[in-house]
């Protein structure tokens, strides 16, 4: 099963889980499977229209899905889908 890596800011919505194994054959299915398991992550990931929020970066392994096929990007069982938030902490 593909693994979703959950960033610190979303872990309050995943009961603290950092790595979540889910089913799905593309990035959209994988993220929706995460949302099905942890419904509170939905508002952070998707707009009301169901689009990926612009401030959320999603990587398939080491590549930004924006340069692949976005939510349609195919995912295999050994892949890692990483949700990457911008962070501004410097202090």
């Amino acid at each position, binding site marked *: 099963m593909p693994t979703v890596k959950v960033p*610190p800011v979303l872990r309050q919505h995943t009961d603290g889980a950092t790595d979540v194994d889910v089913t799905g054959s593309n990035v959209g299915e994988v993220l929706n499977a995460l949302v099905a398991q942890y419904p509170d992550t939905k508002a952070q990931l998707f707009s009301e229209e169901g689009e990926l929020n612009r401030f959320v970066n999603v990587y398939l392994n080491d*590549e*930004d899905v924006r340069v692949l096929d976005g939510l349609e990007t195919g995912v295999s069982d050994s892949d890692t889908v990483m949700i*990457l938030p911008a*962070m*501004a902490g*410097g*202090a």
Partner: protein
Amino acid sequence: MTPQDQTVVQEITPQEAYEELLSGDVFLLDTREPHEHAEARIEGSKLIPPAMVPGEIEAAVPDKSQRILVHCRSGARSAAAVETLMDMGYEDVVNVAGGILAWEADGLPTASDANLTPEQRDRYSRHTLLPEVGVDGQVKLLEAKVLLLGAGGLGAPTALYLAAAGIGKIGIVDDDVVDASNLQRQVIHKLSTVGKPKSSSAREAIENLNPDVEVVEYNFRLDASNILDVIKDYDIIVDGADNFPTRYLLNDATVRLKKPVVSASILSFDGQISTFMPYEGPCYRCLYPTPPPPELAPSCSENGVLGVMAGMMGLLQANEVMKLVLGIGEPLIGRLLLYEALGTRFTELKVRRDPECPICGPNAPEVPESEMGKFPDYEAFCGGHVGS
């Protein structure tokens, strides 16, 4: 030695020697005394004074078929050394005619320790011993101008190590004062500077560490009206800002002035770092086109941060600065490095230039000279995010 035994010493001109050195596998032996070598030398040469040649050459050049160029000041001592080497069985040894005097007269480049004072030669000796740094690299460091955004968690270790390394000018932008709760990670500040401006506290620490560094304090917050004036004199900007408006403003201003930014951020047990080199690699907006809403962007003062995270990420930033100044290694251009302290794991992600980037993309509007200092309202753009 009778005349018939006399070895014929082959000679090449300094220009020929220079071209050979550029093209590769050749050993350059300087047979002068140490003080002459320190004063002026050919980059890459190995010093073995005449009396030491027979005893030391085999360790330096074990392969008798290795091509060796020998020089001294004017060509006489080196001619004798060539004979010595040939007698020892070295097969391919030539003298550089006229020595370093002729080399310099031909306008060929030399390196010198004279650019460093005796105190500096001692202080930076562990740097100058590294072939990748050398005296020339140390001189580059002493001439470099680096601006630190923030003398907080990230800025504190970065400032200390850059100052120790002999970065010639360090600017520090911070409008905050030292608080006792900073001392858990902001290692440049001390109990005795609690209550003082962070820029002054940092300056004091740097001046106690290394008098070679000129420190410039900017005890105010960067905004659209002052940013270009502050950054224009610096070679590299180190971003350890604690808020999104400053990060976007810095990005847009540095792309306009084509200044590299070494950017890092930390939160809890996680850190991120990348180097943004305008037009060569992506910019901050290529990576993060829009800031997250405040609930997805907590600050360290809200969420906490492991103190050593500041040291880890701040020193990775210092390392990037060193490589950029020295022109060595592979900076994190187009790469985002993530560090998770709990798992002690590094992850590297690719960051591409965004063809739609409104700031550095091919369709980004040209900024005319008259608009150079004008920037949009970043506070509004960032949804009212302010510092932590």
